[in-house]
């Protein structure tokens, strides 16, 4: 899957599960947890979606909360290395 497609799918998932409507400024640098767009408990569901997208399990022991800062960090942590 191409990088742009992955980023698009991550964005769509966030939009679908957002606690508040995304503004026009929402982008790959927007902090999703800090702004309350997603909660820490959404992360559990998000991890399962990411596992499905990358076709392999995520080891939560290896992933820190920083990975969920924004779409850029998500892509780096889960897709850039695979």
């Amino acid at each position, binding site marked *: 899957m191409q990088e742009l497609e992955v980023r698009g799918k991550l964005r769509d998932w966030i939009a679908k599960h957002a606690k508040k409507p995304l503004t026009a400024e929402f982008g790959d640098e927007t902090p999703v947890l800090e702004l309350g767009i997603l909660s*820490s408990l959404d992360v559990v*569901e998000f991890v*399962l979606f990411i596992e499905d997208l990358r076709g392999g399990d*995520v*080891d939560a022991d290896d992933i820190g909360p920083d990975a*969920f800062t924004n779409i850029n960090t998500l892509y780096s942590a889960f897709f850039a290395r695979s």
Partner: protein
Amino acid sequence: METATELATRLTGASRRKAWDVYSAFNWTASLEAGRWCMPPELISIYGTPAYEALGDEQKKRLSLFEIGNFFSLVLQGERPLVQGLVHRLYLNSSSREITEYLHHFVDEENKHMVMFGEFCNRYIGKVYPEKKIALAREYAKGEEEVAFFCKVMVVEELGDFYNVLIERDERVAPLVRELNRVHHIDEARHLAFGRLHLAELSARYLFEWPAETLAGFGAWLVEYLRASWGDYYNPTMYRDAGLADAYEVRQMAFAHPACAAHRQRASAKLVKYFVKTGLLAEEPLL
């Protein structure tokens, strides 16, 4: 009415009378009895859905092995932070000596549960399913972190106990699986008695001090935590290991299916009523 300190004294006595050795309590056979269920079919996470009906008898029984492995794993994973939190609360000035004494037993018993669940999972499914929850730092109101900790204790233990009781009684299930559930239930009955009373005392102490906004926010978090905890029961990796295709889609379908939602409501009823009664939830949520 009995206080948590008085109850702790009574439970300490019961824990000492019923003490057991996890390393000699079970007959760990090389393999589980062939042809037996490992989880009652009605408790399998996708029971009542077309995905379940499409499976043959052997596939359903194979799925039941991974379902019990997932169940034991999620209880084990819930007990890890529980033990950390309990150890942190030993010998606090704010806790009575009797409570600390009982917490030692609580920790000891939870440790034994992790040993037996870990042994089962490693031996029969080759792994313990990992935790997916990621803890994020946040700010708490006075007493909120303490209340949240014991809410988490109640969620992992009450939901687990609902399954323990039904599995323990079910003669279709492999004897070793029933025995693990029986042993767990006996210890958990004491932990739950303590947890219910202690959390009720904490709630009575702190909730009236919180601004309405804090209490509403806490209730919203608790509902979300309950839903996330239920999410652990629908593990795509478990479906994949059992040989089901499109594991993530199976999870999404099952979580949204009315039969599964009805099961979650039933299994959570006692816990949710308790949360409403203590004022932690304003109303019974849909799970």
